[in-house]
């Protein structure tokens, strides 16, 4: 029999209120094994990692062994002490501190004889560690100033840095999500060298081509269950996708049709570029709802803001044929663009202002009468909108922060629907919204389209896109990789397209 497993999990379940995230998952990793962990959004990958990291407490009845030693999950630090190491997707670095400080968060500082921190030793150690990984840069720079690949290296170095126990299992959660293609191979070399030291590696990625390039074995999770663990050899992307979504897909190379819609496009974007987007063309006609899908780092997060001019962009965006100035949201509003951005609290909500102020912040001048804002007129119009959108409670003088997430989102929508925009761009419109409000919001979006707005819905919720969109544009690596059209749209197809079925992503990443 093979040596003691580096990590062995038996019967791991995790139940959240009203929802079971993981059901009786078993997992075994040999020392020196490079294992991929794949599955679609919501399959339980993140929960599994968070349980291992001690962030979530698992349901009782689980047995976990690290290098043969029983590990009690549910306390932060226990996994670390046993030799479980993590590089989380956000890396977990403090951007204002330098490399030494960030490394020291893992293992503490080097002291001199007086008990003071020996910066000389610290820096030498940091440099040595990074050189060992094949990186060489100024360790005294705040990590916020470093490029993403350097930061990834620091997070990796921290995970591998020597402590009381050596690293036995390294968990990499989407480590390539933001890396440029050239850096990915370098990272893979590091990962391979870690593997060669006898550390078991669990590699989580949405990029199936990376799985094939890097990993020896793969574990597929679906709906919180362990579906299969098998060698990567003998699998191809189609087969792996079929395992992930639970059924095979017929080929769906849908030809991009000519103008099937009526009328001239209300929104035209040509060669839209940002740091991530690399030349996207998009036309949306009045009354049309176009969905945009893509994994993290594909450009999906940027496209709505780029269209609106909220982030620096190049390329041409026109509304009804008139060019919209870049980086000027106010001009975009004037042109008839509306943006309901993702992450409401950060990007849209004035939580401590009233619903009235939240709705009328766009063009409050509409309520001027004889040069002054007419409160009564404003209240009555805002109330009308709140009622129309079924905001509960529809009280204009209530503060936004006292409403539930779904109702807050409706207020954000009211803000823009009041403008009767020509182009309505929605970024994750039902993020953190309860089921009832979600259905309401979907109806409102359809009504807006029926009223003649060109609508763009950017979402990671693929059933939402299926519900709303006549056409789904799939982004990969900053470009449009696929276009799905009704009746060939369903959540599984979208998922498959986002994670790079087909040759395009392989070619781009290589």
């Amino acid at each position: 029999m093979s040596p003691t497993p580096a990590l062995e999990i038996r019967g791991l379940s995790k139940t959240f209120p009203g929802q079971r995230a993981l059901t009786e998952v078993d997992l075994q990793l040999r020392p020196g094994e490079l294992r991929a962990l794949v599955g679609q959004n919501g399959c339980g990958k993140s929960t599994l990692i968070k349980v291992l990291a001690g962030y979530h407490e698992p349901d009782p009845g689980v047995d976990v062994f690290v290098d043969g030693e029983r590990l009690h999950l549910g306390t932060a630090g226990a996994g670390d002490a046993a030799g479980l190491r993590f590089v989380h997707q956000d890396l977990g670095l403090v951007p204002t501190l330098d490399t030494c400080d960030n490394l020291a968060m893992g293992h503490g500082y080097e002291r001199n004889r007086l008990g003071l921190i020996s910066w000389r030793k610290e820096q030498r150690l940091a440099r040595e560690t990074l050189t060992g990984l094949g990186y060489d840069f100024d360790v005294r720079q705040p990590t916020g100033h470093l490029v993403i690949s350097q930061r990834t290296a620091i997070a990796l170095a921290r995970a591998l840095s020597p402590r009381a126990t050596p690293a036995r299992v390294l968990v990499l959660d989407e480590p390539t999500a933001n890396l440029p293609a050239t850096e990915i191979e370098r990272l893979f070399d590091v990962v391979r060298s870690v593997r060669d030291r006898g550390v078991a590696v669990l590699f989580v990625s949405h990029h199936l081509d990376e799985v094939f390039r890097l990993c020896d074995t793969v574990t597929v999770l679906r709906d919180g269950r362990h579906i299969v663990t098998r060698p990567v050899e003998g699998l191809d992307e189609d087969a792996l996708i079929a395992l992930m979504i639970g059924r095979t897909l017929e080929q769906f190379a849908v030809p991009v049709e000519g103008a099937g819609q009526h009328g001239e496009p209300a929104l035209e974007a040509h060669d839209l570029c940002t740091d991530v987007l690399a030349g996207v063309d998009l036309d949306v006609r009045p009354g049309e709802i176009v969905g945009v899908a893509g994994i993290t780092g594909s450009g999906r997060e940027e496209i709505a803001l780029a269209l609106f001019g909220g982030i620096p962009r190049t390329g041409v965006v026109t509304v009804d044929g008139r060019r919209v100035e870049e980086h000027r949201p106010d001009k975009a509003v004037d042109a008839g663009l509306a943006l309901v951005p993702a992450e409401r609290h950060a990007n849209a909500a004035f939580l401590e202002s009233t619903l009235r102020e939240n709705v009328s912040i766009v063009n409050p001048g509409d309520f001027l009468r004889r040069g002054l804002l007419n409160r009564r007129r404003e209240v009555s119009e805002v109330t009308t909108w709140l009622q129309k959108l079924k905001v509960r409670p529809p009280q204009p003088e209530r503060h936004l922060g006292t409403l539930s997430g779904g109702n807050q989102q409706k207020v954000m929508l009211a803000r823009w629907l009041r403008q009767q925009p020509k182009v309505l761009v929605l970024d994750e419109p039902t993020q953190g919204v309860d089921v009832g409000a979600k259905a309401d919001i979907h109806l409102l979006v359809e009504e807006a389209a029926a009223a003649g707005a060109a609508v763009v819905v950017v979402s990671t919720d693929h059933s939402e896109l299926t519900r709303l969109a006549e056409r789904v544009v799939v982004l990969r690596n900053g470009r449009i990789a696929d276009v799905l059209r009704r009746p060939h749209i369903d959540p599984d197809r979208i998922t498959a397209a986002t994670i790079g079925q087909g040759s395009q992503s392989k070619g781009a990443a290589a």
Partner: protein
Amino acid sequence: MNPPAGTTGGSRSSSEGASTAPGAAPSSEPVIVPTPGSNLHPSPAEVANPVVEADLATTPETPPGEEKGRRFSLGMDRFSGLYVWAALIVVFAIWVPDTFLRLNNVTIIAGNEAITAMLALGIIIPLAAGVFDLSFAGVAGVSVAVTAWGQVNGYSPFIAALMALVVATIVGALNGFVVVQLKVNSFIATLGMSSLLVAAEYFITDGKQIVEGFSEGFLTLGNTQILGIPLPFYAMLILAAVIYVVIEYLPIGRYLYASGGNPVAARLAGVRVDRVVYGSLVASSLVAGITGVVLAARIGTASPDIGPSYLLPAFSAVFLGSTQIKPGRVNVVGTLIAIYLLATGVKGLQLAGAPTYTKDLFNGLALIIAVALAARSARKA
């Protein structure tokens, strides 16, 4: 070192839970330099808010009257300053009836506080927009100096005053440039500017007091009384009315509070946040310039140390005022209440024989206690 975040972020009406802070929510990370505009995330108080899902779903239509009634019941919170003020008057009326209950106390308090009030009104504007202006006191000082210098050098009072206003506007524009274009934190930028202004004041006055050379008519104007109250008080009232209308009844007021409340969201709603911030700094400087002219007319001297003494009282008044009328939001009426409440208390104590330092003691305690109470009621909500 973090007054606005502390004050404004903490002061919320207890029943409504959250209200727009001028300086925005308390920043969650430890900051050395206050960042009044960094309200990007829900503050703990908001998170703790009861989520109102459907408690009023049965009354889809809210008659305006009901809304008013609901808010009126919060009176203890929003109008607590008025009650405290009334209580102070009653206490001192009983304590020192002979000296306190005199009409000239009213006129003295009204007149004396006019300058502080004008300056406080001015800084409401940048604070609403989420930036500090620490240089306003320096601007007022320089404005006094320029007004004096101009008249000493033979210009008419009108021209001298105009020169002062031009200088004030330029200082405001410089502040705006440093904060908006150079992206220097407003606290630091205007702190630096106030030091420059002290230097400028010394330069203009040559380090000496200017007591002679003021035009007679100018000084008469500063000390004319209507109904026994000096003219500066009426200048303050006019200024208050103007700023009140601008903030409450013009779109720019909405843009100010939006920029201060959540600059990212404001920008994505089409608000030109940079311009708003720039303009707010120019406005507060201009108001400080006007105040300097009024001050020059009232005291008839220019000395290099005039101005800075108004810094803390004006800020205290605005922050104390942000617990009133519109809790959590710097506002005009709250600021005026705060100023006259404090002045009444100080006057009463002085008449009761309290020592000179009572003024600072009373002002400081009132500010800390009021804001702490507001923060507590926000937590309970």
